[in-house]
């Protein structure tokens, strides 16, 4: 399959089950909401080293939030529910509670409950106040700036982590430009995050290492500077590869994000220096979720998005 001169390789991204939750963080201004969101989702690129994967799903207008202030929706994923219950209150306590003017609310109503103020309310040292409205309880914690308002808990979902695709381009600049275009479009898809810096990974990994104790190491088959010295997946004209990793609340959300991301890259086409789209997998033996690139892009190719072949 070729779209606008870009080869869509006959392969698939292999992804894993994760559990995730959504937090709605509001603040007096969009800037402070974004600051809280960025801080809360910082150092959360990969469960391998961070304990969770997190990102800003989207910004929220005042009319979309529980308290009528600007906000952000954050998604946080972990490998199991126990880990999720650990990392969410930690990030809430260190990054949202501390951030001026913020409040935090449940972004998912169903599923197993992840504690929010249920855990961090004790910071108020007995001065915390709860209020139950309908079936929902929220807490007010007196803080030096005023009050921190927070829902007692939030729901959770069984999601998908590790969706991905690789952008193979002629140069580093062209690979990055294509990745940036994909990130912009993928950011419009609800229910997904791209947990790596700016949504882009320049150091994709393979499973295992020659060194004992390392779970992952550089994906040498896609390193252009190793071409010829290792079994490479890169044709001669490829000078740089960028990866985009996707976590989402459902298979469908990740699939849709993959589609719009690849479409954005293909819109730049071979004229933009893009050679091919590939994906990372482990032979299909590890992760139950397979995102087959050609199936996902079939409709776009049929619609003649840049000259399918």
């Amino acid at each position, binding site marked *: 399959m070729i779209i606008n001169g870009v080869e869509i390789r006959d392969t698939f991204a292999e992804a894993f089950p994760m559990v995730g939750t959504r937090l709605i963080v*509001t603040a007096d201004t969009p800037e402070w909401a974004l600051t809280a969101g960025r801080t809360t989702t910082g150092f959360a690129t990969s469960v391998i080293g961070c304990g969770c994967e997190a990102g800003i799903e989207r910004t929220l207008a005042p009319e979309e939030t*529980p*308290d*009528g*202030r600007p906000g952000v929706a954050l998604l946080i994923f972990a490998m199991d529910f126990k880990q999720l219950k650990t990392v969410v209150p930690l990030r809430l306590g260190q990054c949202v509670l501390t951030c001026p003017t913020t*409040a935090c609310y449940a972004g998912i109503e169903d599923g197993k409950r992840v504690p929010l103020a249920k855990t961090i309310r004790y910071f108020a040292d007995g*001065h915390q*106040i*709860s*209020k*139950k*409205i*309908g079936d*929902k309880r*929220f807490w*007010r914690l007196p803080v030096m700036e*005023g*009050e921190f*308002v927070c829902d007692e808990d939030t729901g959770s979902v069984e999601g998908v982590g590790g969706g991905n695709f690789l952008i193979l381009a002629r140069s580093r600049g062209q690979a990055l430009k294509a990745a940036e275009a994909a990130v912009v479009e993928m950011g419009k898809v609800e229910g997904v995050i791209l947990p790596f810096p700016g949504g882009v990974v320049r150091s994709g990994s393979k499973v295992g290492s020659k060194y004992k104790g390392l779970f992952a190491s550089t994906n040498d088959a896609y390193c252009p500077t190793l071409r010829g010295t290792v079994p490479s997946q890169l044709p001669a004209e490829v000078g740089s590869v960028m990866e985009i990793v996707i976590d989402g609340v459902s298979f469908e959300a990740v699939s849709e994000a993959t589609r719009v991301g690849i479409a954005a890259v293909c819109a730049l086409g071979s004229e933009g220096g893009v050679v091919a789209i590939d994906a990372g997998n482990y032979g299909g033996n590890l992760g139950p979720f397979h995102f087959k690139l050609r199936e996902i892009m079939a409709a776009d190719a049929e619609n003649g998005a840049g000259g399918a072949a």
Partner: protein
Amino acid sequence: MSGVSLKPRAPFEARVDMAGITPVVTCALTLPELERLAVPFGARSVPLAELFFIEGAPEGVLLIEIGDARLDGVGAGMDKGELIVDGPVGAWAGRGMSGGVLRIAGDAGDFLGAELSGGEISLGGNAGERVGTASSGARRGMSGGTIRIAGSVGTRAADRQRGGLIVIDGDAGEGLATDMIAGTVSVAGAIGPRMGRGMRRGTIFASALPDLPAGFVDTGAHELVAVRLIARRVPELAGVLEGWESTRRIVGDTLMGGQGEVLVQA
């Protein structure tokens, strides 16, 4: 409107205890069974049909077509369904309700919504004493649900309230929220003296600063996100809290170690 309607045959010469005559009960019985249902009437017990014309089908809403201040316990024990009273009711209306909707077009006597744990009571007129409170000897008043009163209420409303919401569009009498444990009360009109004595937790939204016992401490004016949140999450309070940018917060009853609060627009 489908359902059963009860129309008094004549003005009641004695008090009638309507407790237990709920939409669930009227739906479960046939009309002949309903007619034979015994209800306390003064010092004796009479069939329901002796007091009311009973019409309709045993489904949907229960309607009392003409209310009467001698009808006590209307809607008491309701757990679901809808009961409408076109007129006033006596004491103990909605007592111990755990669900459903009770709509009363007129006034209500004392102990409206006593020990309410769920559901919704809507009153078109004024209520007597001790709205949402505990029964005599009970430790706790209403614990959930909503009581909405278009008029005013008598003394000791929300006494020992431990949850739920009371919205009063008119005035509240003396001793509002005495020994309040938790929950929320809103009063759009004037509040009588000595409110909040012994208050432990809970929130009172007041339109003006009331006369408070010595154990209440003014913490000043604040921009409370919680007020914005309540305004959006509680439809019954949206109008009351509209435009509240700054809130004066008075905490008490500190003499009892309480952390209740009276919130007034600053």
